[in-house]
């Protein structure tokens, strides 16, 4: 009876957005009289950071400080249609809609600034700090606040915009499965090292080394949140979770958190992450969506590492101590 160290490797990719397209998202952007913008969405922030990432996308596109943008989500009276927050679609689909809307609003703001400065709008640029100035002549400048105010109160222009992003829905060939799937994919490779105790069947000392390619980290801390939390869920799926532990029999189903088990704060893996950014040609600033694919690689990586450690193939999830012990027993008996 001993503890055995094992290493498992995986590589995966993940489609961004509803697989066949046909999932539009829309955004409405408008400025108050002082050049502060509201982004109205019907999209959902369920913790992944929808409000925060679209806020940064809007601020970047408008050319204003992030504090001048507030994102309002999820009122069906004020937000235009969005398919929803699933299928890793939020950043990509909603982000693109926000860019389209923000560009329209920015054009109105720059047109007003151009009239104020008596130049052509194409000669203007924003500094991201709340100023619009003539390219190459920063002293000839007007604040975004004054430009937005002038647009509304002097020129009668609405500093607003609307945007939609849609990949039209693909058909599926019934014979061959030919289809237009999504336009971009995120990628991950992962190496998991862990210890298997062949007496108890327990897995411990899990160390994860991962490399995720996610287009662009629009906010690196939000990205980290997804990757760390997602890998935790992946480990939980791999070794702990099931609503039907005797599947396909329905016996022993859990009804509470003491029988539906997940790793607690004392059961965490050491996770060291590298982020690669190959921008998606049609992603907002190249961004893809990391929210789902971060969980997927951990499941097979753990199973592969268990094989490497003790030589048993666990092809049924979750990889519980019981499954490992039964497989070891069979291995010894064979």
């Amino acid at each position, binding site marked *: 009876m001993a503890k055995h160290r094992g290493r498992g490797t995986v590589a*995966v990719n993940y489609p961004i957005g509803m697989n066949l397209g046909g999932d539009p998202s829309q955004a409405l952007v408008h400025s108050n009289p002082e050049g502060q913008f509201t982004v109205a969405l*019907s999209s959902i922030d369920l913790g992944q950071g929808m409000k925060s990432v679209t806020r940064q996308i809007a601020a*970047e596109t408008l050319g204003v400080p*992030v504090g001048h943008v507030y994102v309002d989500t999820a009122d069906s009276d004020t937000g235009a249609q969005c398919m929803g*927050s699933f299928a890793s679609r939020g950043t990509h689909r909603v982000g693109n809609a926000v860019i389209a809307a923000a560009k329209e609003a920015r054009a109105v703001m720059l047109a007003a600034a151009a009239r104020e400065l008596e130049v052509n709008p194409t000669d203007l640029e924003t500094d991201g700090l709340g100023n619009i100035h003539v390219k190459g002549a920063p002293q000839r400048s007007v604040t975004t606040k004054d430009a937005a105010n002038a647009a509304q109160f002097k020129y009668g222009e609405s500093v607003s915009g609307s*945007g939609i992003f849609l990949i039209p829905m693909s*058909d599926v060939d019934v014979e061959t499965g030919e289809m237009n799937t999504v336009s971009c994919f995120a990628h991950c*490779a992962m190496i998991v090292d862990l210890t298997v105790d062949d007496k108890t069947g327990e897995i411990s000392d899990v160390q994860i080394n991962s490399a995720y390619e996610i287009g662009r980290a629009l906010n690196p801390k939000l990205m980290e949140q997804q990757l760390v939390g997602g890998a935790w869920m992946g480990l939980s799926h791999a070794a702990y979770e099931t609503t039907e532990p005797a599947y396909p029999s329905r016996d022993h189903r859990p009804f509470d958190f003491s029988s539906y088990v997940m790793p607690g704060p004392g059961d965490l893996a050491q996770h060291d992450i590298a982020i*690669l950014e*190959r921008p998606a040609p049609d992603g907002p600033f190249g961004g893809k969506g990391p929210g789902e694919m971060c969980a997927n690689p951990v499941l097979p990586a753990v199973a592969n590492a268990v094989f490497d450690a003790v030589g048993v193939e666990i092809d049924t999830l979750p990889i519980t101590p019981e499954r490992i012990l039964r497989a070891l027993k069979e291995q010894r008996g064979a």
Partner: protein
Amino acid sequence: MSLDFRKDLFADERDDNLNVVGKPIRRQDILGHVTGTSPFFDDNKFDNLLHLKCVRSPHHHARIVSIDTAKAEAMPGVVRLLRGRDVPVNLNTLLSLLDFGLDDEPVLAETKVSYWGEPIVAVIATSEQAALDAVAAVEVRYEELPAVFDVEEALKPGAPTVNETYPGNHFVFYENTDHQRLRFGDTEARFARAAHIVEGRYQLTPIEQAPMEPNGAIAAPETNDRFACYTPTQGLFFSVGTCAKVLDVDLNRLHFIGGTVGGGFGGKVDSVCEPLAILGAMLTRQPVRYVLNRAEEMQVSAPRSAELWEIKDGIAEDGRILAREFKGWFDAGAYTRLTSYGVVKCTGHLPGPYTIPAVKSDIWCVFTNRTPATAMRGFGVLGVDFAIERQMDKGARAAGLGPMEYRLINAYRDGDMKATRRVASNTALVECIQVAAEKAGYPLAPEYKAMTSMTGASLTQIPETVTDSGRRPAGYTAIEKTEVSPGLGEAAQVQPTPAAPVARARTGGASSLPERPSYAPQPAPPQAAPPPAPEPPEPAPAKPRYSRYSSSIRRR
């Protein structure tokens, strides 16, 4: 925990000179979160709030013989009971909004129950406890029916019919097919030439999304005969559309408020609580709150589907995968929800991020007498990725290669033809493997370190393909290879940021693909050859098909 950015990779494809994007700015919602003031749906306050609880099936499969609510209705605090007959359109399938699939699930069961916990009667009372007491007093008599829980058993002739809409216990895909196919190249010919054959069988398990905030909804009458619904849904208009359909009202009579949700992970897409809460508010003219308790969330609210997989790989002497075949069974539980879509999404994902010149797949969406399954993080992909990556590990051993080397040899690259007959672009698997190896101290030989996603496409043409169903209706023409979005079907094409290709399709984005025959309600074309067992059903729903978004999405 550590995190580093490999800014050296793909640097020429990126403009890192941005003001706001790429910066670790605090979350907009974080102050609300740490002070406990973020507005989750259940944090809205109402006067005269009523509480709704459901009578649920104690059986996995049973005919409802009788329902006696007299005792419950007379109990203190009980305001009103809801039965199936109170639901204006008491049969729905979620993806009818996309015109995909047939209505197969009642909001409240009327004649039979097909899973443990299926709702039958909703009780609305002045307190949660009063509602629970009345639920216990509703008398339902059942005639138990044989139940089936195993996907392979469910497909056998003579298996109990789980879902009357689909008598064969499987979803009916495009053009009346009993499962979803993928055919690319000639797997049999390549298996015959393979040096190694590796086969595996993999069983996934149902998994609960387990958001810390349970599913629920509060609905309240608004002025001018509208109804507000406070909801944790993951798709606001998806939920509006579902409720408008089953309640038979115009969308604009519903005002949905949500957007701040205590975790979802796919478990809040199904709109299970919103319709009953709104119906309750409509009939009582008072605010109605319907929140699942944790046991309901775990065993009644839909989990991740269990999947069963069989994979066969044929591998050449040099470690290249020549052919890969999949057979998959998604356990949908008693009703379709989103599992059918998961099967199609999964098919589009095959054979994983590898270039393989012959791929064949057959996937069934199977109905069994368990909790209906739905979306969850990694939907349609997580299960098969487990199977594929286990299979890759076994293949590497068979080929005598290291697991990273084996994956690098087979990784898809820009320019490779994928099994969906589209050309790969913007790939980065090779670089991910190289970086992960470097981080973990996995030694890669120089030729593996020199590999890149940019070059080395090994398959650029669609191989000659063997098809086998013989069930293609007359007049059928294959899909044209239409570019539906930039980047599809092209080699990597890098555009400067911000991204340009935002389609403004105000008119509804009609696809340029050719019109195809609608599937299902019509009988199968007469020239269709007999299908493989089991016999696909010929469902004949009486009602016209319902599709909220059919103006923009073609019928299937």
